[in-house]
C-alpha cells in the first residue's frame, strides 16, 4: 500500500540510459524540477554492458566505449544535483486531472510521485527465442546476445565454450568478437536473409578479423540436447526462407546465441494505452517528442531502435526541453497536427509521425530505407515553397539510420517524405 502522500515534481523521467540522462539534464536546465527513476542499481542503461567502442563520435567528437559515454552523461547529471531514485521499478502510471501519478516498487516498498509531465526513456529489449521458430527441445544454453554480453562484461562469466550465433545483428557480431577474445570458439554467424543486419564495420572488425564465417541465407532449424544444448542443425534457405533439401548440417556446440533484433520496450507506453506505430513498434509522437497523451514524452529506443547512442541523447534533449516547456505552458495533443506520409516500400520507417505547426520545437526527422539503395534522393516537403530538405544519398541501407534537422519554420500543412532518383 502506498504509505505517504505523493511527492511532487514537474517532470518524472522513467529510465536512466543515455536517453533518460539527457532528458533529465535538459528538463532541469530548462527550469523544471526533475526526478529520474531507474529500476537498476546503477545509471547508464544498456551502455553499462557495452564495453566496445564506437560511441560518442557525434556528441563528443571522440571515439568512446559505451561505458565511457555513459560515465560522461552520469557525471554531467550528478553535477547538477538532480533528484534520482534507483532500484525503483515503475509499476503504474495514472492520469489524474492534468497531472500523472506514478507508482514505483522498490525494496523499501511502494512510492508515489505526482508530476505534470512524464518522459518515457525505458529503452528496448531483445527479440527472444519465443519470437524465432526452431524445432526441438528448449535446453539450457539458448540465450540472447545481450544476455551473453551481460554475463561476460558485467559478471565476468563465460556462458559458452563453443557456440553458434543466429542472426547478424550488431550485438551478435560484437559478442562474436568478445567471446573469441575470451577464448570461446564461435563456429559461425548464421543469417536467414541474404544480407547482414549489422553494420559493415562490425562484419569487418568482429568477424573477418577473427576468421569467423558469416553464412547468409542460412538458418538454425533444430536444436539438440536434453539439459544443455549439444548441437544445432543449420540449413540453407531459398528466397521464401524455406529450407533447401540436402543442405542440412549438424554442428556440435554448447550454446545458441540469438541476435535477431531489438524491439522498443512498450510496457510503460501500454500502461497509458498510447497508440503504437506498427513501423517503429514504439509510441507515436510529434516533433516535440510528445505522445498522444498530453504531457507524456518519449525518447531513445522506446521510440524506435537507434543504432547510435548519440542520437538517443539528441532525442532525450528534445524531450527534456519540450517537457519543461509543457510544465509552464501545458498543451493538448493537436488533432490538426499533420501526419507523416511516406511510401512503406521505400522506407522501413520514419518519425516523428506527426508535425504540429503550432509547436515551436524544430523538426528532427529520423528514417531508415527499406532496401539497400544507391544514388537516391530523399526529399521532405513541409508545405513551404521550397522543399524543407532534399539530399542525394550515395548509399542508404536499412541498418544505418539517417537523421535530418530542419531549421526553417514551415507551414506544415504537408508533411511528406519521398525517395526518388
Amino acid at each position: 500500500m502506498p504509505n505517504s502522500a505523493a511527492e511532487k515534481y514537474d517532470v518524472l523521467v522513467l529510465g536512466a540510459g543515455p536517453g533518460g540522462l539527457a532528458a533529465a539534464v535538459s528538463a532541469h536546465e530548462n527550469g523544471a524540477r526533475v526526478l529520474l527513476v531507474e529500476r537498476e542499481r546503477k545509471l547508464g542503461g544498456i551502455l553499462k554492458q557495452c564495453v566496445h567502442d564506437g560511441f560518442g563520435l557525434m556528441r563528443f567528437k571522440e571515439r568512446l566505449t559505451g561505458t565511457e559515454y555513459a560515465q560522461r552523461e552520469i557525471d554531467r547529471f550528478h553535477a547538477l544535483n538532480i533528484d534520482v531514485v534507483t532500484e525503483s521499478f515503475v509499476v503504474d502510471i495514472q492520469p489524474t486531472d492534468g497531472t500523472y501519478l506514478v507508482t514505483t516498487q522498490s525494496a523499501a516498498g511502494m512510492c508515489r510521485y505526482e508530476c505534470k509531465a512524464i518522459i518515457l526513456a525505458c529503452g528496448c529489449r531483445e527479440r527472444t527465442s519465443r519470437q524465432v521458430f526452431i524445432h526441438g527441445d528448449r535446453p539450457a544454453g539458448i540465450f540472447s546476445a545481450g544476455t551473453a554480453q551481460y554475463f561476460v562484461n558485467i559478471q565476468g562469466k563465460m556462458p559458452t565454450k563453443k557456440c553458434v550465433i543466429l542472426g547478424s545483428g550488431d550485438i551478435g557480431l560484437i559478442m562474436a568478437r568478445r567471446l573469441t577474445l575470451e577464448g570461446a570458439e564461435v563456429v559461425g554467424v548464421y543469417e536467414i536473409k541474404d544480407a547482414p543486419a549489422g553494420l559493415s564495420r562490425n562484419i569487418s572488425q568482429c568477424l573477418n578479423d577473427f576468421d569467423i564465417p558469416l553464412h547468409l541465407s542460412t538458418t538454425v532449424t533444430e536444436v539438440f540436447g536434453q539439459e544443455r544444448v549439444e548441437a544445432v542443425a543449420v540449413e540453407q534457405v531459398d528466397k521464401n526462407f524455406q529450407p533447401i533439401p540436402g543442405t542440412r548440417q549438424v554442428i556440435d556446440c554448447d550454446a545458441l546465441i540469438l541476435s535477431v533484433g531489438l524491439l522498443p520496450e512498450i510496457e510503460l507506453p501500454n500502461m497509458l494505452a498510447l497508440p503504437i506505430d506498427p513501423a517503429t513498434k514504439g509510441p507515436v509522437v510529434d516533433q516535440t517528442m510528445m505522445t498522444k497523451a498530453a504531457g507524456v514524452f518519449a525518447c531513445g529506443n522506446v521510440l524506435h531502435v537507434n543504432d547510435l547512442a548519440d542520437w538517443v541523447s539528441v532525442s532525450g534533449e528534445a524531450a527534456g526541453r519540450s517537457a519543461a516547456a509543457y510544465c509552464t505552458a501545458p498543451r493538448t495533443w493537436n488533432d490538426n497536427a499533420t501526419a507523416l506520409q511516406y511510401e512503406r516500400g521505400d522506407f522501413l520507417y520514419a518519425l516523428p509521425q506527426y508535425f504540429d505547426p503550432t509547436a515551436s520545437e524544430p523538426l528532427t526527422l529520423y528514417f531508415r530505407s527499406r532496401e539497400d539503395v544507391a544514388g537516391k534522393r530523399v526529399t521532405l516537403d513541409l508545405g513551404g515553397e521550397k522543399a524543407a530538405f532534399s539530399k542525394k544519398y550515395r548509399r542508404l541501407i536499412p541498418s544505418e539510420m539517417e537523421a535530418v534537422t530542419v531549421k526553417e519554420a514551415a507551414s506544415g500543412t504537408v508533411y511528406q517524405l519521398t525517395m526518388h532518383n
Partner: protein
Amino acid sequence: MEMICIVCPNGCRLEVTGTGDDITVTGALCPKGVDFAHTELTAPLRSLTSTVATAFPLVPRLPVKTRGEIPKGKMHEAMAQIRAVRVTKPVKVGDVILADVFGTDIIATGNAGEVAA
C-alpha cells in the same frame, strides 16, 4: 581491392588500387579513410576493449581499453596480459591499468571501487 573503413560507424566502402606506397583510395567520406587504407595495407592496427577482474563485490568487472591502437596480430597476446590483472584499488575512467602493452596503455573505461557511483 575493396575494404571497409572501420574508423567510424559510417563504414565507408573503400576501393583501393595500386601497390605499396603508391595506392589510390576512393570511396572515403573523409581523409581518415585514406589513412586507414594505408596502415591497413602496411601494418594494420586495432583498438582493443575488454574487462578486468576487480576485488569489489558490487562491480566484479572493470571495463578497459587500449589508449591507442596495437598491431592487429597482437590482440590475443594483449588479452592474455589483460586477463592476468585484478584491480584492488578504486579506479576511475582514464586511469592506467596496465602500462606499455605493445606500445600503448590499457586504461579504465569505467569507475570501480569507492569512486563508483
